[in-house]
């Protein structure tokens, strides 16, 4: 371990900038966006410097730590606020700050007409700070602070246009769904503390080797719940679609660089727990597999371009979660897919934002069409992202997704074959819905609104898109050449170097199968969407109808959790009103009634007072007399 003093700037800079912009208010309107972007860029630069510094060190010394201060010191519970920058964190730091900076630049132009642009940038920086704290914390408790910070920042950003009630509700929904996951994380931390007496990653790792299987499974399950909340995995995925209420750069930020990747990070960081508990791993795999198909199916039916991409994110994160459940080798591929996905999904979202920018904020893809000619740059960058997400060689997604499919097949037995088929199927459906988005938006006939005057977006918007497109093209090859990322992450996620080299199917066969499935998906979409009705047809298959409604996840949540929850709270309120308040009111009522009766004694007649006094004295004497007898 190397002791570093620079790590704190990763968090302090964006946090300071965010606070400054919020406190200065309108005074910072003129330069706030520039300042925030520069801060984000400087964080990225520090990240790059740290990355090279890290490369110059070898072995154990690569990871750097910084103790900030003694945070909690209660009896045996000792937690320091400390930061840890190791091979895993640096990947996230670079992704978060790099893609984050590009999104900052894009937002300068995208939000230029919004009077609250400064506030938006303050929130963006807050998001970056929280996310960096999440990936840099050296204990679960520090991670938890970042975790909650991300939840807060996402709430603020999704509900940025909170003057619209639907958007404010979407922000609330995201927050509540995240809270469910947060409960999982806090429970995991508590179990870890009771079991191991510490919550630092190093301490838990040490303790995990001697812990009981039950405890590890419990921690794993709770961590998975947390990951499901943040990463929009089944069964907590319903917030993701509604989170599109935020401005498009927010969607890009949430979906590519931050937030949803937190769950993958959490599981990867906790690899020592999952590796020791096959049950927890199996749960992770199942959740990943379900979400992968779930998201892909929803993606096929959405007409809202952002919601289609959101469903796609859900599905792609499903791939990553699935990979993290596949043991030591899976973590590296999950992170690889996470990084490549960070590039192409951010590019796709920014592309979608660019299209919306040119089309008067129209999001319905059925009102697009033939935008290729008026938005050539957007079409090109979007197209590169599209090829990347499809997994067409040599684009980024090919390397990362194929590895996951391969690993799924290699995981052995029936499970392996099943997972392999699911991941292949997911790839096919991905090809279908992404081609659908592509065809509906950029090719075919014009189905524009009469008022629409589509135009190419300004330089500040297309430049980040172009940068991300470059990443979508090259990142997969770079990360995969000579197993660069796998070797880089090996000290963190795979200390024992358990690579099993036997393949169920040779990699080339898997690639061919994947490409075939993708080709089929593309072909179906191209044929099906040669003509596109402006109004979505009603006479469609049941599955399409279900997918349009997010596979009834909202209805399910409403029926199973929300309505009974409402009934429960209504019942509790009623109980509170009738029983608790009732008792209080009863006391008051008794006092009131007895007082109004006792008041009759005070009738103002001296003689009756005298009589009462006499009777009282007689009673007193009688009482004394009785006692003394």
């Amino acid at each position: 371990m190397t002791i570093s003093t620079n790590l704190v700037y990763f968090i302090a800079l964006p946090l300071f900038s965010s606070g400054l912009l919020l406190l200065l208010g309108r005074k910072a309107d003129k330069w706030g966006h520039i300042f925030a972007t520069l801060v984000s860029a400087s964080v990225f630069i520090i990240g790059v410097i740290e990355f090279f510094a890290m490369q110059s060190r070898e072995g154990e010394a690569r990871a750097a730590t910084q103790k900030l201060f003694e945070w909690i010191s209660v009896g045996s519970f000792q937690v320091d606020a400390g930061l840890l920058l190791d091979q895993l964190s640096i990947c996230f730091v670079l992704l978060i700050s790099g893609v984050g900076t590009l999104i900052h630049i894009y937002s300068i132009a995208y939000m230029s007409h919004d009077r609250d642009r400064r506030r938006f940038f303050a929130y963006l920086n807050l998001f970056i700070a929280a996310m960096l704290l999440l990936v840099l914390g050296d204990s679960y408790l520090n991670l938890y602070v970042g975790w909650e910070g991300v939840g807060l920042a996402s709430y603020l950003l999704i509900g940025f246009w909170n003057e619209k009630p639907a958007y404010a509700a979407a922000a609330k929904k995201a927050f509540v769904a995240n809270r469910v996951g947060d409960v999982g994380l806090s429970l995991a931390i508590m179990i870890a503390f009771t079991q191991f007496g510490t919550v630092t990653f190093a301490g838990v790792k040490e303790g995990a080797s001697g812990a009981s299987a039950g405890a590890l499974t419990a921690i794993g399950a709770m961590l998975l719940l947390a990951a499901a909340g943040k990463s929009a995995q089944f069964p907590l995925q319903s917030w993701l679609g509604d989170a599109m209420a935020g401005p498009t750069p927010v969607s890009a930020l949430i979906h590519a660089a931050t937030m949803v990747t937190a769950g993958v990070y959490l599981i990867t960081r906790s690899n020592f727990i999952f590796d020791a508990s096959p049950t927890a791993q199996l749960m992770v795999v199942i959740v990943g597999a379900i979400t992968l198909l779930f998201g892909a199916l929803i993606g096929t039916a959405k007409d809202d371009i952002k919601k289609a991409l959101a469903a796609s994110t859900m599905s792609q994160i499903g791939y990553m979660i699935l990979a993290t459940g596949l043991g030591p080798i899976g973590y590296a591929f999950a992170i690889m897919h996470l990084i490549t996905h960070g590039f192409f999904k951010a590019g796709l979202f920014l592309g979608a934002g660019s299209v919306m920018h040119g089309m008067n904020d129209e999001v319905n893809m059925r009102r697009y069409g033939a935008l290729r000619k008026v938005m050539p740059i957007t079409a090109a960058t979007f197209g590169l992202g599209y090829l990347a997400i499809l997994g067409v060689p040599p684009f980024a997604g090919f390397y990362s997704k194929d590895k996951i499919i391969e690993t799924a097949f290699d995981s052995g037995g029936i499970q392996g074959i099943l997972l392999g088929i699911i991941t292949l199927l997911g790839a096919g459906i991905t090809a279908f819905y992404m081609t659908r988005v592509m065809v509906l938006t950029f090719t075919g006939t014009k189905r524009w609104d009469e008022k629409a005057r589509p135009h190419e977006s300004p330089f500040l918007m297309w430049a980040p898109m172009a940068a991300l497109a470059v990443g979508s093209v090259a990142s997969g090859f770079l990360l995969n050449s000579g197993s660069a990322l796998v070797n880089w992450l090996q000290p963190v996620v795979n200390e024992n170097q358990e690579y099993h080299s036997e393949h169920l199917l040779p990699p080339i066969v898997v690639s061919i199968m994947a490409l075939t499935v993708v080709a089929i998906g593309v072909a179906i979409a191209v044929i099906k969407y040669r003509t596109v009705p402006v109004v979505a047809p009603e006479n469609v298959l049941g599955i399409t109808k279900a997918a349009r409604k997010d596979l009834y996840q909202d209805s399910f949540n409403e029926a199973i959790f929300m309505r009974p929850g409402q009934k429960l709270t209504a019942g509790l309120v009623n109980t509170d009103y009738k029983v608790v308040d009732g008792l209080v009111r009863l006391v008051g009522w008794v006092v009131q009634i007895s007082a109004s009766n006792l008041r009759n004694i005070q009738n103002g007649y001296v003689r009756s007072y005298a009589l009462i006094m006499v009777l009282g004295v007689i009673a007193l004497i009688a009482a004394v007399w009785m006692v003394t007898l």
Partner: protein
Amino acid sequence: MDISNYIYLSAILFTIGAIGVVVRRNAIVVFMCIELMLNAANLAFVTFSRIHGNLAGQVTSFFTMVVAACEVVVGLAIIVAIYRSRRSASVDDASLLKR
């Protein structure tokens, strides 16, 4: 003569006074009944003083007389004031505190 007869007399006088206070309406009569109760108490004090063979009870009865004298002054003044303002010496008419 049995000394306890004084106590019986004192008790009877006190009871007559107490009943008079409760049943009579005329303020002057009520006032006299109170005097009667005070003097019944005095009688009891003196008797007890005699029984116990010390002077404490007799001294107390002097105090009672002084207090009674003061009370007569103040009480009569009040009764006269009420009579002047209300043209009545009935204690039941002076029941304004109820409201």
